[in-house]
């Protein structure tokens, strides 16, 4: 952190920055909340940094495994009714999960697949595992593990994050119903050994001239010699940033095979593209978006939040609203913070239940059932954070996404879905409450 509390000064601000609904956090949950609220209210979304979507695979999961580890689940909705009390899906109910995904489908249009069914799709990952997920980028559609067509996986020498032969043998070992084979080729042209993934993507977007050959053609040529009878070819997810469909179509035509992307780790092009789509949807919905400064504090007025304070570098600026949504993320997104003393929610200091002894926060086994993975705020069924005694903190504050406790998104494969469902529910309720408040003011005004 560049600034400390001690250096802050009050700004003597009036209520100049004021909206119906203020959403704090710019990830999937924050975007879903802002979109859901925007039907009925003026909405502002603030985020500290760019969203962590850039680090995300771009897959949007609903529920792949139960909290007890059963799965992969064929249909997440079969299991949602049995989730333990306090799980975010239990709080909002299956209907909100559907609404959250419907909102997502609306925002991303034909760039995503999976909305035709409740059932999970099985998408191969860059490690060669198979992940159950609810929505996947159109670019991954030809790669599904349930597809019986044989697949050639292609890796690039300089892109060490994707070892295609290893991923292919992992898929074989996982028992996929097709033959997977992996080869490593040199990406054509003369790129730095440590070229960014975006560099490859832009070269393909623009079909740049690489040693006299257009990039898409040159890449297809490099792969052709290795292609056998396979009907589909998978690449690391660097096939374009602005025009991924065009890149895939051209490669596919040259290769005579369907082309798909294998989702990758950070920085992730599918994550970047999803971020672009979601922020376009915010712009279309008229949501005001600000990024660059962290929310750090709250001003309460009895049982209501009056303002959230944003640290603009050694000063705190109040953002007023009628309703607030806290979608600041979990341990990765820094919405939940911890040190040796304890665990807390970073902006409003909502209660985060956790064992007093920090050696009880984790298990010895790296992939064990860690308590820390479920750290987050407890909420009522209207998503309002609860104090240690179970009472509601503020009646006009709701929390959404991985700031919530009671679930382990990494083990359950439920991260995207929880963010959509709780983001939708929090935003919808905030929008309705704000609209209600506006109606009351109007009626009140009429009688005068």
């Amino acid at each position, binding site marked *: *952190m560049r600034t400390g509390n001690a250096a802050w000064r009050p700004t003597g601000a009036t209520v100049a920055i004021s909206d119906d609904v203020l959403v704090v956090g710019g990830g999937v949950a924050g975007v879903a909340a802002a979109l859901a609220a925007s039907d009925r209210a003026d909405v502002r979304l603030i985020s500290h940094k760019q969203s962590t979507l850039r680090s995300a695979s771009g897959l949007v999961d609903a529920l792949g495994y139960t909290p007890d580890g059963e799965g992969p689940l064929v249909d997440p909705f079969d299991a949602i009714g049995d989730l333990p009390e306090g799980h975010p899906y239990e709080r909002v109910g299956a209907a909100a999960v559907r609404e959250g995904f419907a909102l997502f489908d609306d925002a991303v249009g034909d760039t995503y697949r999976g909305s035709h069914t409740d059932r999970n799709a099985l998408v191969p990952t860059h490690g060669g595992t198979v992940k159950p997920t609810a929505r996947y980028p159109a670019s991954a559609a030809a790669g599904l593990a349930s597809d019986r067509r044989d697949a050639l996986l292609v890796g690039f020498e300089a892109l060490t994050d994707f070892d295609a032969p290893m991923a292919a043998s992992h898929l074989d070992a996982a028992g996929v119903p097709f033959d997977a084979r992996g080869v490593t080729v040199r990406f054509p042209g003369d790129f730095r050994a440590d070229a960014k993934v975006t560099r490859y993507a832009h070269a393909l977007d623009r079909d740049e001239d690489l040693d006299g050959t257009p990039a898409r053609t040159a890449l297809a040529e490099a792969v052709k010699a290795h292609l056998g009878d396979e009907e589909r070819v998978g690449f690391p997810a660097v096939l374009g940033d602005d025009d991924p469909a065009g890149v895939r179509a051209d490669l596919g035509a040259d290769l005579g095979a369907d082309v798909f992307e294998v989702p990758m780790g950070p920085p992730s092009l599918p994550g970047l593209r999803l971020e672009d789509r979601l922020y376009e949807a915010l712009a279309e919905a008229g949501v005001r978006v600000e990024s660059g400064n962290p929310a750090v504090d709250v001003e309460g007025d009895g049982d209501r939040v009056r303002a959230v304070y944003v640290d603009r*570098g050694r000063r705190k600026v109040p953002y007023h609203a009628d309703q607030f949504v806290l979608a600041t993320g979990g341990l990765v997104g820094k919405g939940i913070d911890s040190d040796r003393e304890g665990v807390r929610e970073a902006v409003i200091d909502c209660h985060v239940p956790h064992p007093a002894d920090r050696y009880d926060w984790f298990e010895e086994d790296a992939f064990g059932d860690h308590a820390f993975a479920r750290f987050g705020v407890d909420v009522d069924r209207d998503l309002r954070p609860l104090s240690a005694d179970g009472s509601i903190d503020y009646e006009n504050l709701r929390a959404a996404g991985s700031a919530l406790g009671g679930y382990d998104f990494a083990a359950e494969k439920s991260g995207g879905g929880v963010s959509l469902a709780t983001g939708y529910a929090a935003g919808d309720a905030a929008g309705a409450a704000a609209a209600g408040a506006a109606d009351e003011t109007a009626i009140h005004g009429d009688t005068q």
Partner: protein
Amino acid sequence: MSDAEPPDDEFEPVQVFGDETEMDLRPGSDDCYKCSTCDTNCPVAAVDDDFPGPKFQGPEQWRLKRKEDRDIDDSVMKCSNCMRCDGACPSNVPLSQMHNTARGEYVDEQMDTLSREYLRNRMLSNYRFFASLGSKVPRLANFVAGLGVTSWLGEEVLGISSEREMPEFATRTFREWWEERGGAGVSNPDKRIAYFHGCYSNYNTPEVGKAMVRVFEHFGYEVMVPKQRCSGTPMFANGMLDDARRAAETNVEEFVAAIGDGADVVASCTSCSMSLRQEYPELFDIHGIEDLSAHTYEAVEYLRIHEDLDGALDDADAAFPDLAYHAPCHARNQGLEGQAVEVADRIDGVEATDVGDSCSGISGTYGWKEENYDTSMKIGEEMFEHMEDADAETGMTECPTCAMQMEHGTGYDIRHTLELLEAAIVEE
């Protein structure tokens, strides 16, 4: 954060590294978990295959430097100091501070001070010195600058791109206007601001400074215009940290005195406000510098926080052209990228379109250098296209060099947000 008291016999990692006497960049470097988000945001790395990107320039280079006899890689001079990596980092790594520090060290210890590049960079970063000479004889200076032979000489001798047109000097500087009008038009001990006009609105676009004064006086502020030097932005970008420090000493002294008189500090240029609030305390240890940082605001930001600007604009209309608005990177880094369009939306008779989040590519002195001109224009391409697509023939931004680039790439006339506010709320 309070750490538990470590038992005496326990290994305590921080002790291994001894006492740091210089700025400690280690914690920031350790915070980097190599997600490479910064690299995907760097506008230079996007178009220049030779540039290794901010992750290398920052934490990785810092770590390499822990070894003896390690030079700073000369690619650091290709960083344009747009600071977008700061806003990109999910882990609060102080990337621009690392770049500024590395660049300063490179210039001090590895650059030949007799080289053409050094002299050119020194000249560019001390723009104010030459502007103050030029503005003494503005018509002559503009004439000379406009001569073909001047730009030929500039490129051949100094390496300043002949593609660029020298900014015109105003025939009357902002400070001359201020003196002639007799200083502040409003006296108000309860509402004071000290105006950091910077070099450009003084020597080149005094209409921005005048708009600033009129708008703030409209809201009842007493405007003070303390003595001032360059904010340091071009000096940081060229690694001329000694020059920047000398200028900072004057600025801190003068503006801290104004703060003592009850003023907040307000800048009309987003790079000036960026420098005073972030780079100053990151790079220099001058008495009062934290205080200056804490009291500095960008002009529209200040009004939005302290005045009912929305209310003032609700019934306002302005005879002003429709606008293609570009948010400067340094505005973006202060979290101010959306405010200009929000403000414009309130004003009847004006449509403002945001031309997107790309960098203009000029980054102050960067795009003026012969060797960077092509890169600069390549970076700017996206913005030019979006400006052409927007339903407007006039541009708007808060950064003087972004404005130059916008004009250079599209031929549009470029205005400042304060000029729009002046048209909307100040009565003639």
